[in-house]
């Protein structure tokens, strides 16, 4: 460090030079403070999203860095929300990466007393096994009156109001095709 720089780094000198004799303003500003910028300035990209809680439909901006969400806040461009969010919408990132979020499949066998590990692939195969078997075992081609039924009443599906239209569409399409009619969601609650 050169002498003049060293001298300038000395707070008292800065205080005097900058007219900040009491050391309350710029003279005491640290290098970190001087160069501070909002972390969203470093985002790799900004995603456009919609709040997942209620149905007001507030628009969100999602700032991403190194594949991780670093901030979620309101999108001012929205004609509905004008950049604002409620506490739930504001807590979106906290929900997304919360301490209790589950990332792995968990399996509980019949009469089991604890969760077990299971791979996603195995879980999918096991679920398909059960759907196909249950459907076969309980298929109703006709009603007792002889009317067409074409269904199984032993499989039911619940949920949808928190999901995307495209997800609901595939869900309804698939389940209808395999003869499941008990497809329901939160519209009833």
């Amino acid at each position: 460090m050169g002498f003049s720089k060293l001298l300038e780094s000395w707070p008292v000198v800065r205080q005097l030079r900058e007219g900040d004799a009491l050391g309350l303003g710029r003279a005491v500003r640290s290098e970190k403070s001087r160069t501070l910028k909002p972390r969203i300035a470093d985002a790799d990209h900004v995603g456009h999203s919609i709040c997942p809680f209620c149905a007001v439909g507030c628009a969100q901006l999602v700032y991403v860095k190194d594949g991780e969400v670093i901030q979620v806040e309101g999108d001012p461009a929205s004609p509905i929300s004008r950049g604002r969010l409620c506490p739930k919408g504001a807590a979106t990132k906290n929900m997304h990466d919360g301490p209790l979020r589950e990332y792995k499949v968990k399996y509980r066998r019949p009469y089991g007393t604890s969760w077990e590990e299971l791979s996603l692939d195995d879980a999918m195969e096991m679920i398909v096994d059960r759907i196909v078997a249950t459907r076969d075992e309980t298929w109703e081609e006709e009603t007792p009156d002889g009317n067409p039924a074409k269904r199984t009443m032993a499989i039911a599906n619940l949920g949808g109001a928190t999901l995307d239209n495209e997800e609901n569409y595939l869900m309804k399409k698939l389940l209808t095709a395999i003869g499941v009619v008990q497809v329901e969601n939160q519209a009833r609650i």
Partner: protein
Amino acid sequence: MPSLGTSFGRGGATTFQQDLMNADCVTIMGSNMAENHPVGFQWVMEARERGAEVQHIDPRFTRTSAMATRHVGIRAGSDIAFLGGVVNYILEHDRWFDEYVKRYTNAPVIVSEDFSDTEDNDGLFSGWDPEQAQYDVTTWQYAGTKVHAAAGQREKGFSPSRVKGEQSHGGHGGGLSHGNPPETDDTLQHPRCVFQILKRHYARYTPEFVADACGCTVEEFLAVAESLCKNSGPERTGAFVYAVGWTQHTVGVQLIRTAAIIQLLLGNIGRPGGGIMALRGHASIQGSTDIPTLYNILPGYLTMPHVEHYGGLDAYIDMTTAPGGWWGNADAYMVSLLKAWWGAAATPENDFCFSYLPRIDDDNSNYWTVQQMLKGKVKGYIVAGENPAVGSANGKANRLALAKLDWLVVRDFVEIETAAFWHDSPEVESGELKPEEIATEVFFMPAATHLEKDGSFTNTQRLLQWHFKAVEPKDDCRSELWFYYHLGKKIKERVAESQDPRDLPILDLTWRYPTSGEIEEPSADSVLAEINGWDSTGEALAGYKLLKADGSTSCGCWIYCGAFAEDKNQAARKVPHWDQSYAALEWGWAWPANRRLLYNRASANPDGEPWSERKRYVWWNADEEKWTGRDTPDFDAEKKPDYVPPDDAKGPEAIRGDHPFVMQADGLGWIYAPQGIVDGPLPTHYEPHESPFLNPLYRQQSNPRRQKNPDLAEDPYNPPGSDVYPYVLTTYRLTEHHTAGGMSRFTPYLAELQPQMFVEVHPDLARERGLKHGEWATISTARSAIEARVMVTDRMRPVKIDGTVRQQVGLPYHWGQRGLTTGGAANDLTHMALDPNVHIQEVKALTCDIRPGRRPRGARLPDFVAEQREIAHADNGAAPPQPAETKDTTVSKR
């Protein structure tokens, strides 16, 4: 929302949130908008700042009341009495919007002489069948029309007399032709015209009656009624805002219908600052009804075939098609859907695979399924993004039902109570369930958040808004799109070699969606493109008017046709609001046809001129001979105001140029609903299924058509008027939490804001029961008992009913066993008696007891609940007396 569907033609909010700022009066009832839709509430605040009155009518003084210019406290479950009083006030004081009512509503229509009213039958409409406990609606029809029956067949599932619930869009109006009901009286004087029937029906709903039944004062009621009236007419408009505070009753659909009647009488539908704003509680609950994950409808509100339908596609279409209005093209919508699902396999020769569709019974809804589960008839259950163990009524019955399954798949972000019922639930604590005795196999599948997937939500104003994937889901987390796509792919592989006809719907199912990435995520864009549909050349369709019934078009949901017009994702449009008008037609895409304010033809007078300069919105441009304005006109753009359909006109052509409700067979707003609703053509005050009070109007205590489960031991009821359960109980949400808590109780920043279950009571009730602020109380019903911290507050107002002061108990319903903050689940107290139209539970008004202290622990809890039940004679099944209809009819009229 069948009430809105039946009244106006479409089951969605008639307006959009931003337009609330144009209201001269905003009436919020059955909603706590400031708490549950805070960001939407900014538009109410804008209206208030512009001088609008904001009225909140609610049992509780909430954060919405705190912002209102007027709060009126009423007893939970008395809303129809209140609103019926408003109807009476309008009619008694000549305050209706005369030209609007005469020209745009069915007020002048003459009803069958066989119709008789609840006022004539002590609480029952004509056509009541006590054995079936349901109505034959034949006598409710317009004079000179018959209930439409297909080709002489008695097809239960399709008779318009049974078209109901979400299917009842545009009330198919059997027998109507060329846009006019057969008999009308434009002077509104005919004794059997809708207007006069309405007048008689509500004549007893005087201000004094309202005050006595609802527990407010006459002055409070009059202030509300007057504010509604003076803020309506050509120069002014008022809006209604509601949410599940209205729907979650055994009279939920009728409740909303009452508001529809008021808004039609006052001329507030289809006009800026008017309308009925239905506020939905989940991000895409409107979407999950439009593209339904509901048992009784197909995409676009097409009805699911019923087991008693034994005709083919022609019979289905015959029964589904309305003589007038846009439901006249139901054939095109249905055939295009079948083409979207079964593609090349769907041909005219095989009825476009219509026979592939499974058939439904009258009720295969959620609560019916829970009962089937309890009986062991349901083996497998997939739960995706819902937490019935906490969020559904009668949580205990729901959890016991889960324990009867063979297998259960739960997809969620966290281990919610529904996934954990077998090791962490009140029943495990009490010993009623033992993990080592539960056979249910449970798969917990971690779900991707909205930040980890592409897709669209349909918000509360029918607006599709796209969210883009921001980051990849981690580890095993997957979207539902991934789950159902790969599930379908694997099921198709399993049956690939099958010769069994039952597998044809799977084998022929179109299931090709491009995937990307390591996890093979299907393209949500490609799914939306299929929903939108295309023509025979593969060109994306621009709108539902282009759909054909000959198999040349494909469309996965006709009301969403246009969402991918020009092969572009219209839902992903994000033109900033500052670059467009306040209707913001280039932000997202709204069904139908990107209209934001529905029925907006009604914003102009019959001649097509704006009713007033102040309320100008859509009008007829005589020079260019087309409708124009600030929104997409909700009318044939070139249909002249004086258009009169020829006698042989069908479908949209059968709608007159001055009839704005284009989905209705007659183009009119339905004050009186001759069909589409199963429990009456007009709303009537009934007491909640559980009530401390006798019905002040009729011996018929509660909605006779409500669904209840008198034989289900798991769903016992508090007898009406029981001393054991003397208080009115209502349940609700808080700003700081979300529904059953899966997205908030597990989230630190939200959990800390409301960290514990509490019960709100008035100081008088606290004194009466010895409850101390901050200490514990036990709240019990015939179903269960929970504990909560006591919040003594003047906000929980007592009501004076028929001269007696009555107390109400308030419980937020967010808590459960798990998460960062845990507590008693309010829904453990609620029951499964339902609205008959939509099978929705009554959790906004029931009865309970409250005592100081913590609830009994372990096995003593069910014992305590059973003892209380015994004292109250509240056991279901074998234990008499029944708390049901027999009791209803024996209570004496006051």
